[in-house]
């Protein structure tokens, strides 16, 4: 499964901010870390701020701060801000063939599992997974 670039950037940003609670992290720092343009990242962060997931502070020492509950905010909550996971499964349009219906059923099943998976993994759980992965890395 492939997420859109904005979605991936949003997830990276959320995890970056959540890993540094209470700290205002400059957007430029996140952009440099993930090789993204500041302009592109700013759009993503603006959406996260509108959703109440991050707070922004302007000026010297400013930046973005994680504002949500890491034990309740899930990956699906973030993903849904940027894309519709159900869009991959084609609706049975008028004139659809039995193959269309059957294929749609299989895709819907995959979509349901994907949503349940994203909806079950909180930011706190992800941070734990990241930490374990870092320990395993040479």
């Amino acid at each position, binding site marked *: 499964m492939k997420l859109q670039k*904005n979605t991936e950037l949003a997830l990276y940003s959320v995890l970056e901010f959540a890993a540094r609670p209470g700290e205002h992290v400059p957007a430029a720092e996140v952009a440099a870390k993930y090789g993204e343009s500041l302009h592109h990242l700013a759009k*993503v962060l603006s959406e996260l701020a509108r959703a109440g997931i991050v707070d922004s502070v302007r000026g010297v020492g400013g930046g973005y701060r994680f504002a949500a509950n890491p034990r*309740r905010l899930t990956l699906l909550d973030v993903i849904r801000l940027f894309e519709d996971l159900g869009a991959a499964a084609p609706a049975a349009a008028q004139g659809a063939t039995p193959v269309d219906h059957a294929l749609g059923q299989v895709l819907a099943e995959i979509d349901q599992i994907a949503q349940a998976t994203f909806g079950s993994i909180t930011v706190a759980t992800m941070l734990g997974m990241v930490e374990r992965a870092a320990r395993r890395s040479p």
Partner: protein
Amino acid sequence: MGSKLPQEGRRAARRSGVAERPAAVDAEVVVRPVRQADLPEVIALDATVTGLHKADYWQRVYRRYGIGGQGLRHFLVAVQGDRVLGFMIGEVRDWEFGSPPCGWVFAIDVDPRARQQGVGTRLLAAMRERFERVGVRVLRTMLASDNPLILSFFRSQGMTAGRLIPLELAIGPQD
């Protein structure tokens, strides 16, 4: 941003993003096997969470997993003084579809007022310890895909998708 569901996403994020700060659990929380005297609180807790009062069902569960549960069946409660904060039920199941003995957790409830304070974590740790004692090396559970709260709890404990995939078939007359 090309968002097709921005409002829904925002609502979900706000709902999830609002920090919940439950009252702290002060006195010591103890996890132990259930006792007959705990049942009224267990039944009340289940009714609070599910909306269904199932006294007969819980008496049967108590007989099977409480009184009769030793070694392979466990009905545990987390208590603080006389107050039941939560419970968990599990058992060792062996050779289902060729699977070596594994620990199955099939019920968990934590008082909504005592959530996010490690009660579920303590219950699962106690259950895991009992399973490990009899040589079990895999812990399993099965959850509703539309229950993100309980799914995320087990995820937070390190559980991931396993090699078994649940399937179901609607049988009998369908409305």
